[in-house]
């Protein structure tokens, strides 16, 4: 298991090094793969959604299926065409080769634009991994279905489909001042993509998936004890279905393994920290995402939530012209930041947030 965890962590590091500011997308997609969950990327075109799935498929030596869905896309384009030779003999058979049925991963682009025939076929694939084709029930091998969309559906009839993607990440364009870094990372990815070699196989993914399940079932009481209070507080802000809540422990354990944390190193602190991070992938829309950011700021472990609070306090003091108190608070905040940076658990999970706090403090310092 340790070897498998090292491998999946290596996959994550490889992806992180090739994509610019994509750590959430990478973490959530690999978590989805380990839990065998459906995962959706929501964001404008040109944010490397397809490239991410293509790269994961390469690194995991997986066969992947890609379709851009429109209202004119036919069911045959997804599940394969009818075999004409067999049809002439009077048999209705389908050719599943190179269709979603035979793929390890499927990326369905603009999934909510599909026709109702495809959407109904998709529902059974997402739920049961089967298709009802005429009188036959065909098992679908697809391990993880990735959805990509530019919009969250408002239509009532599409809600059922959206709910089948419990893990969600919102992608966005890089900031204008990040253009240089983006260009470099993008060019590196273009150059290296063909050279990406498999780090892990799908059989190994399946083994780790089984281990994650058995670990979670065996440690059910401990895992539930540490995850539940955070999840319960989060429910004050964001609606999460019972079905998804039950699966949160699996997501958390998988998240820890993607991060490279071995089972023997899983404890209360790592479980809580991973829960806080996983909650980000359970939001419904961008409004929920803003709610999550505030929730995280208020509930982060160690001194981090205090640090966020201090930043807010210093901003208030500056705007009210109480500069001498603001300076004192800033000094306190820097001391606390140093302590937090020295805490290995906090640093491992909240490195990005700490960097953000650091740059905000620098900005406030220059203002003062």
């Amino acid at each position, binding site marked *: 298991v340790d070897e498998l965890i090292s491998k999946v962590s290596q996959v994550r590091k490889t992806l992180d090094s090739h994509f610019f500011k994509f750590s959430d997308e990478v973490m959530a997609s690999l978590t989805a793969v380990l839990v065998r969950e459906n995962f959706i990327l929501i964001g404008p075109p040109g944010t490397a959604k397809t490239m991410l799935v293509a790269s994961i498929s390469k690194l995991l030596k997986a066969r992947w299926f890609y379709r851009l869905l429109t209202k004119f896309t036919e069911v045959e384009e997804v599940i394969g065409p009818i075999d004409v030779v067999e049809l002439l003999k009077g048999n209705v058979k389908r050719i599943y080769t190179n269709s979603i049925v035979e793929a390890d991963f499927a990326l369905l682009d603009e999934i909510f634009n599909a026709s109702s025939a495809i959407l109904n076929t998709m529902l059974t694939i997402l739920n049961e991994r089967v298709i009802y084709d005429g009188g036959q029930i065909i098992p679908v091998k697809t391990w993880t279905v990735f959805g990509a969309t530019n919009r969250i559906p408002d239509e009532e009839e599409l809600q059922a489909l959206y709910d089948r993607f419990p893990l969600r990440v919102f992608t966005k364009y890089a900031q204008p001042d990040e253009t240089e870094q983006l260009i470099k990372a993008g060019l590196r990815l273009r150059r290296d993509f063909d050279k990406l070699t498999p780090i892990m196989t799908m059989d190994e993914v399946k083994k780790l998936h089984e281990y994650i399940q058995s670990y979670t079932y065996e440690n059910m009481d401990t895992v539930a004890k540490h995850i539940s209070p955070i999840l319960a507080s989060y429910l004050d*802000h964001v609606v999460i279905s019972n079905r998804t809540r039950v699966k949160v422990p699996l997501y958390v354990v998988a998240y820890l393994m993607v991060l490279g944390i071995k089972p023997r190193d899983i404890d209360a602190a790592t479980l809580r920290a991973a829960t806080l991070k996983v909650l980000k992938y359970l939001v419904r829309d961008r409004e929920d995402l803003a*709610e999550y950011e505030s929730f995280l700021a208020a509930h982060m472990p160690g001194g981090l939530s205090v640090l*966020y609070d201090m930043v807010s306090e210093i901003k208030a003091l500056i705007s009210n012209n109480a500069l001498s*108190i603001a300076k004192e608070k800033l000094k306190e905040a820097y001391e606390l930041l140093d302590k937090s940076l020295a805490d290995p658990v906090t640093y491992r999970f909240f490195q990005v947030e700490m960097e953000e706090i650091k740059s905000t403090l620098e900005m406030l310092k220059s203002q003062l």
Partner: protein
Amino acid sequence: MGSLLNVDYNDELTRLRVHEIVKYFQRLGIPLKLAKIPNDVIADAFYIHYRTPVLREEPQEEEALWHLFLKTYLSTEVYQEVSKISRYNYSVSKSASVKTVESIQQSPL
């Protein structure tokens, strides 16, 4: 507008804290008269315990009474004792703010 100089009442974090306190009231089964208790008052009740409070020198007319209440409370021994454990402690500050808001609600003012 609240009574503390060191609180940004429009901040998302402040809004979230207020929301959580309101939910906490509901969970405890204590009726909260939101018409009588504005969000800024709930934020003040929380932040006087969580942060070292910095009161505005000149409160607005409509907040004069609340300002006086805070000033009086901050000078009591009870507050001194509570603040020793509530500073930067979220759950203690939340409980203390519930008590504070409850006492305002129960006052005839």
